[in-house]
């Protein structure tokens, strides 16, 4: 699964060849597999678990993280020579918190239902260690454009895992896809046309009538299992990532 996404971004990146040398492309593609923020760097796991019960909030969350990650890297990198060392962390956090507040205000103004749904988890992007981690490790020492790409790449790597986990959790746990969005698609969920005096919980009246939603998948714990399994699969293919300790 991770391999596919790598190819996709590379294809997208190609037309802009002049700005995207080999190194720049690596900045975008590395976080998707070899250096994935969640499965390899173990950063930003918190929100990965909390919002992934549905795909739609996960997509919104990923977009928000890409935005915050990219622009905080850009600004930090622009200011990297003038930030006083003693207050470095606070300055970085203020930059991140400002961007997150912008995300919050914009969501509140343009998509109120999803703002309600994500509630405190928007604020938690501030403490998403990916953002902070990349600022410390990359943006403080690199030029703006490359820091920006690094931010986008890490945001995408995070988003990829988020959406994959959410996909499995929503389809098997709830039987829908993109629930809550205009694209809502009821795959194996109950058929709401049937009028009954009991709750349609299983896939009553749909083509997968024999399937009953998996209650484990909707629990936050399922996200832990899924990420654990991804790590297992990824490391089986990518031997250099195996933990020797």
């Amino acid at each position, binding site marked *: 699964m991770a391999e596919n996404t790598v190819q996709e971004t590379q294809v997208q990146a190609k037309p802009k060849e002049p700005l995207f040398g080999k190194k720049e492309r690596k900045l975008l593609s590395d976080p998707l597999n070899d250096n994935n923020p969640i499965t390899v760097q173990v950063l930003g796991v918190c929100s990965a678990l909390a919002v992934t019960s549905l795909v739609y909030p996960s997509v919104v969350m990923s977009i928000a993280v890409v935005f915050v990650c990219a622009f905080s890297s850009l600004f930090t990198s622009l200011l990297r020579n003038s930030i006083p060392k003693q207050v470095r962390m606070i300055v970085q956090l203020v930059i991140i918190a400002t961007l997150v507040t912008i995300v919050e205000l*914009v969501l509140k103004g343009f998509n109120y239902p999803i703002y309600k749904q994500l509630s405190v988890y928007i604020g938690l992007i501030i403490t998403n260690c990916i953002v902070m981690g990349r600022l410390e490790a990359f943006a403080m020492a690199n030029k703006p454009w490359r820091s920006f790409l690094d931010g986008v790449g890490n945001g995408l790597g995070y988003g990829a895992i988020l959406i994959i986990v959410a996909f499995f959790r929503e389809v098997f746990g709830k039987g829908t896809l993109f629930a809550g969005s205009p694209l809502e698609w009821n795959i194996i969920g109950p058929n709401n046309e049937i009028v009954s005096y009991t709750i349609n919980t299983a896939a009553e009246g749909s083509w997968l009538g024999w399937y009953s939603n998996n209650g484990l998948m909707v*629990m936050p714990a399922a996200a832990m299992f899924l990420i654990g399994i991804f790590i297992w699969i990824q490391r089986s293919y990518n031997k250099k990532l195996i933990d020797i300790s």
Partner: protein
Amino acid sequence: MHSTNYIVGFVAIMTTVVAIVLTALFLGLKERSDQNAAIFNKRAILSAVKDQLGDQDPKYMGDQEVLDVFSNQIQQISLDMSGAEVSTADIEALGYKGGQAEHIDMKKEKKKPEGERVLPLYVFDTGSDKIYIISVRGNGLWDEIWGNIALGSDLNTIVGAAFDHQGETPGLGAEIKDNPSFPNMFKGKKIYDENGKYHSVIGVKGGTTKEDFHKVDVISGATVTSDGVTEMMVRGVKYYEPYFNKIQSK
């Protein structure tokens, strides 16, 4: 190493820039977000009378339509616990700007002692009939749950219901909102039995029928949320009893 003056200057400039940017954005979007919040609330109230709105589903209605239906067909009344109507000025004095029933923050009311609460009531005029929409609020598994219940003009039969929640588990507790068959079960249920005794509607495990006027099925796997719904239906609907007695005796 930078000097202390430099640090103070840097932080001061940064704080100013950040404050200006955020304040500008906040003020620029304030009207929009306030309106969004109001529409969100109105849409939730209208969801309780989905059937009476004709073929329009409040979920897919445009913002303007929601505002129109709300201002043309709904009369807002604020009540205190003794069933007396509370004036706009008194509601504003409680800190709810606007002073209408829709401005009452149920979350804040729930924290007050029972006797001091104020209650919102929406009277929906279908043209031929009056439907009373009441608001109830309780606790689910993770956080609060709430609902709007529409009662027919007999003030006994439930004609519609809509529930929402703060953070119930999707696929389990969140089904009170996501699965349309859950609120649908409440339709046709009754608050009082034929002797006039108060029952409200409670959730029970397994196999209720259309004729069980005071029982609905619970969601399997979401016991705490379902118990919360039962509790809020029994306690919350009762709050409106004094007012209903008053208008019925007229």
